[in-house]
């Protein structure tokens, strides 16, 4: 069965199903396109959901499809074979189960596994790769989509084994089989591999014809388009058409995210350097190191070793001795993972020889801006003197500049015990790397730190704790620091901020009070007011207001400030993360009482006494609104909950007099009352049969919210309403109130009437 025919059928079937199935159809439609177009982040976003849905819907073939395309993205395109190898083996196992054996995609699981080994150590696993590809090809014919891919894997193994003639012969053989099967147009992989083989055989002109014969590489997806482009660069270089090769050579930024392009890029850039078209610089050395590390992280050990060797050769060419030695060490480390390390021996010997020549030349003792020169200078200086601290820091800085932050860290770790400034530098390095565990370890023994560095180290540790969200520990640390160094105002301010974030208002206020005299008015005073308002420390509020030049209300210094300072809106962040805005009356600089009743379905804040952050969330609207502007502030604490609940009532609007009577009754009980619909709203009279009268009379309607204390029995409100509205033409309906009062039948009747009436 043709895989794409199956995909289309499955897609159509799923789209006729429930929403989950439709979503799955959408995802399997997108996955392959995202993979071949290098939208790998989208693949990462889609795969977990697609897989979960396929399992839920019991679609094993679709599971296989999703897992295969996940591996295509990770393995084939991103060239990653770490955890992917386990997944590839697992997928092979899954694909050969009774449920999935017949799935056309099951053949492709073999390719995923073979490519994992190709990535890890292409030349090392040549026999196995050839055997797997050959075995799979016997099971399929050219009508299968993967015929070209599996054939390409066979060719790739031969090329890794440095056998381009055999590769060409195989390509020809496969082309013949395909043609006899009616597939006259060679596949993309086949054509590109032919070009690669011809290039290796110094038949670059013919290779160029092949690649130029692929008229529209973009048609095959972005990934293949780039592969085509880089192949062309290699061919042009071989032909000596350097300017064209340089113009076509992509920047690193264009390919860094797709590991499958990196090897070609490294080879091409090395070729361009060798012909002098690209400068051999320390920055390029950094770029190659980034690529090398990416290969290593992907378990691409052969490419790691090759890239390190290329980097070493180029480093030696630009006279960077320390860097060359470091890279040779890394070649050796990577070779340990390879089955045929001897393939790199000759190249390694050449670099070693270059390095030996370099090392016979004298080194400049003048400091340099070039970090590679600096490292060479400092290495030479080290041989003259024992390591002074400034040398250590300079070496660490140079190592970081050449992209060796890991070595910088190791150096600092090894020497931090001896030097305070080295310890501080190490702490900063660990913080920058977000290595909080190591940072904690560094502070286990801080008794030896001199005062000069002790404070700075504490600053760094505090930042680490905050980054991790460990606010309590951050607060404790800053408290202890201030106990020893009370004048450390940045730490005091940080303590205040952390305490605020942690809801420890007392600590925050104490810190701010102590900091205030040392900073200009306005720096901390609003924060003081906020914290003091939460704590009810009104003397502190007044003191801060004085510093801000605000008018202070009369009364005792400690008396609460409960003014009426105008309407504002307060924004609450509810426990589920949703935000709700409510009208309030401002009662103090950072305090307000909520006057709006929320709908019963929303968290209720009516009569909450709150403290807010005095920063207008709608400041950007002030200019347009001008005098009408009403600020909105974010609530940071509820000092006195209103402790109310609300009921929604809907029904006939009895007119202003009756309405006002109801309002007074409710006010006498100190219940909240708010009309939420405007006058003029009408609905058909529910007493008139709509079937009998096509144009029933319209009656004015109203919806109101009533808020009662939580401690109040809803039955009391219900009874009050019954009595007050007894004379009304039609009732106010409140099924939720009926239910809360235990009147279930009434609640059901009210619900039914509301559905019919819709007032």
């Amino acid at each position, binding site marked *: 069965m043709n895989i794409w025919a199956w995909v289309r059928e499955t897609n159509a079937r799923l789209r006729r199903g429930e929403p989950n199935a439709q979503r799955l159809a959408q995802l399997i439609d997108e996955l392959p396109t995202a993979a071949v177009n290098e939208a790998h982040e989208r693949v990462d976003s889609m795969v977990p959901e697609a897989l979960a849905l396929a399992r839920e819907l019991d679609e094993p073939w679709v599971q296989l499809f999703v897992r295969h395309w996940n591996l295509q993205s990770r393995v084939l395109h991103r060239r990653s074979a770490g955890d992917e190898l386990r997944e590839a083996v697992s997928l092979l196992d899954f694909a*050969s189960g009774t449920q999935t054996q017949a799935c056309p995609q099951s053949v492709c699981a073999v390719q995923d596994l073979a490519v994992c*080994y190709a990535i890890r150590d292409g030349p090392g696993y040549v026999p*196995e790769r050839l055997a797997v590809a050959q075995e*799979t090809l016997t099971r399929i014919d050219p009508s299968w989509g993967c015929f070209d891919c599996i054939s390409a894997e066979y060719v790739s193994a031969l090329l890794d084994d440095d056998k381009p003639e055999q590769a060409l012969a195989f390509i020809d053989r496969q082309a013949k089989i395909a043609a006899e099967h009616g597939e006259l147009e060679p596949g993309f992989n086949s054509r590109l591999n032919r070009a690669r083989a011809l290039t290796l055989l110094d038949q670059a002109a013919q290779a160029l014809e092949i690649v130029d014969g692929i008229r529209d590489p973009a048609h095959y997806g972005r990934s293949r388009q780039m592969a085509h482009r880089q192949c062309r660069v290699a061919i042009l270089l071989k032909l000596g058409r350097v300017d064209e090769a340089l113009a076509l050579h992509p920047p690193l930024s264009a390919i860094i995210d797709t590991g499958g392009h990196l090897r070609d890029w490294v080879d091409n850039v090395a070729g361009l350097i060798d012909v002098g078209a690209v400068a051999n610089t320390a920055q390029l050395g950094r770029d190659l190191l980034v690529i090398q590390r990416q290969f290593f992280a992907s378990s691409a050990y052969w490419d790691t070793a090759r890239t390190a060797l290329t980097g070493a050769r180029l480093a030696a060419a630009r006279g960077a001795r320390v860097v060359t030695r470091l890279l040779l060490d890394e070649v050796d480390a990577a070779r340990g993972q390879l089955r045929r390390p001897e393939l790199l021996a000759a190249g390694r010997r050449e670099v070693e020889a270059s390095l030996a020549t370099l090392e016979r030349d004298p080194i400049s003792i003048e400091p340099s801006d070039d970090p590679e020169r600096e490292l060479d200078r400092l290495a030479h200086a080290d041989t003259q003197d024992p390591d002074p601290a400034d040398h250590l820091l300079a070496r660490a800085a140079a190592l970081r500049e050449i992209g060796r932050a890991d070595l910088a860290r190791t150096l600092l770790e090894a020497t931090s015990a001896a030097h305070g400034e080295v310890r501080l530098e190490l702490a900063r390095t660990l913080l920058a790397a977000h290595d909080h565990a190591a940072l904690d370890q560094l502070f286990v023994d801080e008794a030896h730190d001199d005062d000069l560095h002790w404070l700075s180290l504490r600053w760094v540790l505090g930042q680490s704790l905050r980054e991790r969200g460990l606010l309590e520990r951050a607060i404790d640390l800053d408290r202890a620091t201030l106990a020893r160094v009370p004048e450390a105002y940045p730490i005091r301010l940080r303590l205040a901020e952390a305490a605020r974030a942690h809801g420890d208002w007392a600590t925050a206020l104490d810190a701010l009070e102590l900091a205030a005299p040392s900073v200009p008015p306005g720096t901390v005073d609003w924060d003081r007011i906020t914290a003091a308002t939460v704590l009810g420390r009104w003397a502190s509020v007044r003191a801060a207001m004085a510093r801000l030049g605000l008018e202070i209300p009369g009364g005792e210094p400690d008396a609460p400030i409960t003014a009426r300072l105008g309407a504002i809106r307060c924004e609450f962040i509810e426990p589920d993360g949703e935000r709700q805005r409510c009208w309030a009356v401002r009662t103090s600089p950072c305090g307000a009482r909520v006057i709006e009743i929320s709908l019963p379905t929303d968290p209720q804040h009516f009569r909450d006494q709150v403290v807010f952050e005095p920063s207008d969330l709608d400041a950007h609207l002030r200019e347009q609104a001008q005098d009408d502007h009403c600020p909105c502030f974010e609530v940071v604490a509820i000092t006195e909950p209103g402790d109310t609940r609300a009921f929604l009532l809907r029904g006939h609007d009895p007119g202003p007099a009756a309405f006002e009577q109801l309002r007074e009754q409710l006010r006498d009980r100190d219940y909240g009352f708010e009309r939420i619909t405007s006058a003029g709203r009408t609905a058909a009279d529910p007493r008139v049969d709509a079937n009998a009268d096509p144009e029933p009379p319209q009656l004015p309607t109203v919806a109101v919210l009533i808020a009662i204390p939580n401690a109040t029995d809803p039955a009391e409100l219900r009874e009050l309403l019954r009595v007050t509205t007894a004379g009304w033409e039609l009732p106010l309906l409140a099924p939720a109130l009926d239910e809360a009062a235990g009147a279930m039948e009434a609640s059901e009747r009210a619900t039914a009437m509301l559905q019919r009436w819709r007032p």
Partner: protein
Amino acid sequence: MAEHSTTLHKTRVDLEGLMKVLGDHLYSTPMVAVRELVQNAHDSCERRRIESGAGFEPRIIVLADPSAHTLTIEDTGAGLTDDEIRRYLATVGAGYTRTLRQREAEPEVGSNSLIGYFGLGFLSAFVVAERTEVWTCSYQQPELAWRFVSRDGQTYTLETGSPRPVGTRVTLHLREAHRALANPLAVRRLLIRYACLLRHPIFCPLDVSMVASGLGLAEGDAVNAEPPPWRDDRELAPLRRRKLALEFAGRFESDFEPLCTIPIGDASDQPEVRGLLWIQDATTYGSSDNRRVWVFVRGMMITDDARELLPRWAGFVGAAIEGLGLTPTASREDLQRDGAYDRAAAQLLDALVEGLGQIASEQPATWRRILYRHNEALLGAAICDARLFALIAEQATIPTSQGDLNLTRVLERSQGKIYVSQAQRGGFEELLFRALSVPVVQARRYGALAITRRWAEQRGVPLVMLGTERGEQALFRRVEDHELESGAAEGLRRAFAAEDGGEVEVVLSRFAPAHLPFVLVPDREVELKQRIEADDADRRISTAALGLARLFTQTIAAGPPVRLHLNLDCRVIAQLGERLGTPERATAAAGALGLLRPLVALLSQTDEQQRYMSSEAALTQICELAERLVASAP
């Protein structure tokens, strides 16, 4: 022998066949005829402006007459002489506009204001009309008027017409299949979109009699009276400008209202592309694709579906743009994919990302609405663009076992780590994260895992992936035997060994929550090893592939495929350990063990359970214990 001579011939054209091919296949929809003829009218006005100078009032009137089944486009442009009718109107592929465009390089001719290029526009008339009539009077011969009539475009009549003002009137007598074009409301809606960027006023009255009765058409009635936002250089208050931009965007969306707009291209520089982006006000999912991009070139709408100009993650975004450098295809219904196209796409991406950032800082209420509507899509977007990641990662919500929370809140509630589950239903992970009182990120949802992982990496926050070996190591801290009383470790292992020698390793650990006494955890790698190395695998999997697979599984240490982690932080397990360490106290633990052992199996719902104890055996033991308790009760 006869002599052969070579003669030269001219390839002939079957006009009928060519007309059919061009007509049938060049244009995808009959609405294109409206566009083409309005464009011709516009170019005619431009021509008159260029060639005869100022002093005339350019206008174009489009009349759809449902009773007469006609569509008429009338302009006050340059008109045509009889010679021009023959050379340009009646010759396919020869358009005067191209000739005129070649003069555009001359400064006195003016800027790129002409639309047509290929000389094929008038052909569209014959696609929709069974008869086409053209009345025209050229500014060059204002005393002469001409009437051109054609049915099929292959033959035509040409005669002098009644005197008329300078300009042209084209009347299409519509074919039955295309009489929708005689609907004035439909045509007006079309023009509001298609022609909004054209310079000269275009009128499309809904009532034909307005024109017939001689009533003037006010400038404000023109469908293109309001300039597009990026060409509007009036002094306007920001709120008004925003409102107008929303109204403009609203013209282009039939399914979604625009929630807010983002300008493309600064008026002060010379950007490649100018226009407007808008965010749709409709809830989307991660992979929804409602991208809609309207592209105008030289003032005329080329395509309404250039979605590839927007990144794939922007499934909730629409745009209307005009780009001087963009090149239409021959049908003028699509764009050529060239360097200008790529640059335009890059510009749109930058404008969108920067615009979202500005909305976040300057319009927080709108930004919150965008987050609410498009949370999932934005998660995916954040992964694709570092700038968006910085903007969105903290604010968007992630699905967790405790509801949708932002990552800062997840971290706050999780004591410095973030737990992620890709669990299948019924696995041990589900049990564990139900028991944990921390929010667990639901990695099976779109974008959740990718964004959580990146956010955690950036902050050095440990990520605990439930269901993986590393996750297991992070969750369960192994307890060494020497940490317990003598004999306790061995006693616990013996007491909790699997039934019938099942392959279960009993592991002493400490983990949260303390009220969970044990968890049965599969070792998926060992399971895989067992399956791949079993004899059965040789029958299922081909030899060479199996060989490669076994290369991997040989690196996995052999062992039981399931581990039972006993929680030493749970009091009952700790107490059991103390008793089981000494034989004289061990019997006291029998009752508790009788309850706990079956619970191990019943709390797990997958295959692991069966390795430990079957459901039947578990239930039997619990019932037996319950019977004993009943029997021993006074």
